[in-house]
């Protein structure tokens, strides 16, 4: 591999693209994937703490029942909701539909609005 090949630019250069709805939602999909990784990690610790016993679990309960804990949990719920719904959008694209700019923008707005509705719905049901 020569120097030129080594320094080939990589694909998504966030700084050089003009910001628009499609790119904003796309990068949000990736950001939420990283947040979801943190979220599922916490869920794993929660389950492990459950095994470790009631005393260990109590520390988790203290966290989750606090105001900040609730705030974080709602944030994670939104992140999962968004990634889930935008994932459906990706699956539809994979099947070859929804590429027209108007449709893609519309489905994007739909996903964004639905992600908040799903978050609110999940917490109201709880």
């Amino acid at each position, binding site marked *: 591999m020569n120097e030129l090949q080594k320094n080939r630019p990589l694909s998504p250069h966030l700084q050089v693209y003009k910001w628009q709805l499609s790119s904003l939602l796309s990068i949000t999909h990736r950001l939420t994937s990283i947040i979801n990784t943190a979220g599922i990690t916490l869920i794993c610790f929660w389950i492990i703490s459950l095994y470790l016993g009631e005393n260990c679990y109590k520390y988790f309960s203290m966290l989750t029942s606090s105001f900040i804990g609730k705030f974080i949990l709602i944030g994670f719920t939104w992140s999962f909701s968004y990634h*889930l719904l935008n994932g459906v959008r990706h699956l539809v694209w994979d099947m070859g539909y929804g590429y027209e700019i108007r449709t893609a923008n519309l489905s994007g707005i739909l996903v964004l609005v639905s992600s908040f509705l799903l978050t609110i719905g999940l917490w109201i049901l709880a």
Partner: protein
Amino acid sequence: MSNNVVKKWMLQRITAVILLPLLIWFLSIFVGLVQKDYQVVIAFFKNDINFVLSVILLTLVFLHMKIGMGEIFEDYIQNSKYKSVANFIISVFATVLPLATVVSLILIKFN
């Protein structure tokens, strides 16, 4: 090589489709469950169906996460050595954490 990439692409979609209902189920319960007492949560995971679905969910989530993170590294890490290291770390993480969690679930269920 290309075959492997195709497999990963397919696997990412298949895990996504299965995870979709599983996560909606889990999230709808988790949000309430996390605020409940120890005994209630233990009883939840002791239930056969909840136990099996949780194990499937954990396995698939970490598989999906590993492939997805690999894609992100592919796009943003230029140096192939660093990329391998990053992929290795994610692989270890995506194996150890779900394994420890599934073992915990098994011990909770059969305790």
